[in-house]
């Protein structure tokens, strides 16, 4: 398992991660959700031992990643965001190298390499140089290199970034298989759908800080089954805020001269009342977007921003 307590990482003036704490269990997938630059990769860097935390503690299977780095790393597999592959070598040579780097040798290494090639669907192309592979094939091999040594803890840093839908589905299946096999999986992404379909527990982070954590149900509960109504146009923020708050069970997530975001139950039925209230303030509405409760809407509710902004 992975235990992160009050993790903080600073780069000169910049605080990349601030007071992040969570525990990821064996046999489950823990998601780290946040926009680009939120601090997900820095958190992964601290867990893998590549970065030294400024403060706090990180333990992998009980081993402190700073003071017992070697023991912690032995059980760790990492699938980085970039395609960390030797393009001039074959798929088999890549897998063999990463297996050997974790101490595997001889027939057990060869057998495991065959197994992983089968798993990632590259058995037929095993001897070809990786540079001839498509993006999806490289992504799958990148994943294979992270699991070849059968790690008990697997860190996945946006492993599906830029892949075709078919390869994405295959990769997500592979991630589920790892957790089903007993591995503790930490999965970072900014794709809400992936996090919703994959993760048992989640932490939402933004600007280096943890803003929500729990199971998918717990997080949805934070929205109170409310829809999210996003209105784009021209508003006088204070007047608009006052007008909609007079309506029953409406919450203002954010209000600025161009955008108004509201959280409300049964939004489709309440739309005429909302338009009427805003009309009384002289507002002009150009665009309306209604979202059902999801991690996306939760993120907007918590930060006032969309996840991909």
């Amino acid at each position: 398992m992975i235990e992160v307590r009050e993790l903080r990482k600073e780069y000169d003036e910049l605080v990349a991660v601030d007071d992040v704490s969570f525990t990821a269990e064996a046999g489950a997938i823990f998601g780290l959700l946040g926009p680009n630059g939120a601090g997900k990769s820095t958190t992964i860097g601290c867990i893998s031992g590549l970065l030294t935390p400024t403060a706090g503690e990180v333990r992998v299977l009980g081993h402190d990643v700073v003071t017992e780095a070697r023991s912690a790393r032995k059980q760790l597999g990492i699938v980085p965001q970039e395609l960390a592959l030797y393009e001039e070598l074959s798929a088999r040579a890549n897998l063999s190298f990463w297996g050997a780097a974790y101490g595997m040798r001889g027939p057990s290494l060869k057998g495991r390499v065959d197994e992983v090639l089968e798993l990632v669907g590259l058995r037929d192309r095993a001897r070809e140089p990786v540079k001839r592979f498509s993006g999806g094939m490289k992504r799958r091999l990148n994943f294979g290199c992270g699991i070849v040594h059968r790690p008990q803890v697997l860190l996945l840093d946006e492993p599906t970034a830029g892949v075709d839908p078919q390869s994405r589905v295959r990769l997500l299946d592979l991630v589920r298989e790892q957790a089903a096999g007993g591995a503790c999986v930490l999965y970072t992404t900014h794709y809400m759908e992936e996090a919703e379909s994959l993760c048992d527990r989640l932490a939402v982070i933004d600007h280096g800080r943890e803003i929500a954590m729990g199971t998918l149900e717990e997080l949805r509960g934070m929205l109170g089954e409310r829809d999210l109504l996003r209105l784009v146009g021209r508003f006088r923020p204070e007047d608009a805020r006052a007008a909609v708050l007079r309506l029953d069970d409406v919450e203002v997530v954010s209000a600025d001269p161009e955008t108004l975001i509201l959280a409300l139950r049964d939004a489709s039925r309440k739309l005429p009342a909302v338009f009427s209230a805003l009309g009384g303030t002289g507002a002009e509405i150009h665009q309306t977007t209604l979202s059902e409760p999801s991690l996306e809407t939760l993120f907007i509710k918590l930060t006032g921003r969309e996840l991909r902004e």
Partner: protein
Amino acid sequence: MRFVLTCATKDFRRVLSDPLALLLWLGLPLAIGGMIWLAGGAGSGGQPRAHVLVADLDSTFLSGLLLGAGEQEGAAEILELEPVALEDGRGRIGAGEATALLIIPEGFQQAVLEETPAELLLLTNPAQTVLPAIVEEGLEILVEGTFYLQRVFGDELQLLAAGPPTGQNLFADTIVASLSLSVNQRLQQLESTLLPPVLDVSSPVSEGGEAEGSASAVDFGLLFLPGILFMALLFVAQGMSDDVWEEKMNGTLRRALVSPGPAGGLLGGKLLAGAAVAAFTSVVGLAVAVSLFDVPPPVVPAALVWCTFAGTALLVFFQLAQLFATTQRGATVLTTALVFPLMMVGGSFFPFEVMPDWMAAVGRWTPNGLAVVQLKALLRGDAETVHLARAALGIGVPAALALLISSRRLAGRFAVNS
């Protein structure tokens, strides 16, 4: 150690997957060396000869003796002497028509016999570098020979230089007999020193009457080949050192650094792979030395070990430079800015023997310069253990220090900074 070997195998396979780079590292210096060799006369089947104009203003027995020595079989292979009038000689050397103009001043014989200072003037062609240096060396040997001749046979030379008594065309038989007797007695006195000779010039490939040709071929090869071989090793070092940036940019470095193996092991693997490529490069270079320049095969193993060691050390230095650059492009600029001056002063473009003294003095203290000097000694078969050990320490200790700094840098800021 296993981790080092694993990394080395991987890196070596990556080098082999790009044979074009390997060919360039090897081919470029060999092409340059080949051109120098052909320009030196190898293509026409002969050695380069210096064309020396001689203005003999003394026209005496001793000046004739000096010039005669220059026309003997050994010297004639590298010197082509042409007597000229002084003004004609000055004009032609000014026009760049010869390698050098030697002026034997009036009173040269007198000065030698009376053991007073005499000065030979040598004007060299500034457009040439190697041949004037050969002429200068050759002339110094002739002058030294003349000095010792005077010390041993001074009386007899004075008699001969004075010529036959007035009114006679030839020396009287009694004088000739007396001279013969005197020379014979002097030789008998020196016999214990001269026979067997205290100084012995030997050539390991002297069988079959090839000694003279082989010796000069070895000399020519030794002049250029070690520097050219280290030019190839510098290219290898620069080319392979770039790999830390390749690995950083494609993410494999970070992935490797979170594996249980130490950062030093990762670098160690790169060095081992570099050592294998350096050894391969050296084998090719030394094979050229043996086949074209008659370098004796028994010296090859020691030379191979030396080249591999020094080549690997060069890789360490370049790797350190790469690790302190802030971008990959900056690293390329930095190492290129290092590699060409190192080649220039370290004896790769021009041998130390033809460099200005100050430049040769600086060049001999560069890592590749130190290595070239010892490689020459190894190929000549006269390397001294003390000098070799000193040079090995001079290269090895800074390399070990550089490796230590590189390991720390690799696992620290270098891997993390984007």
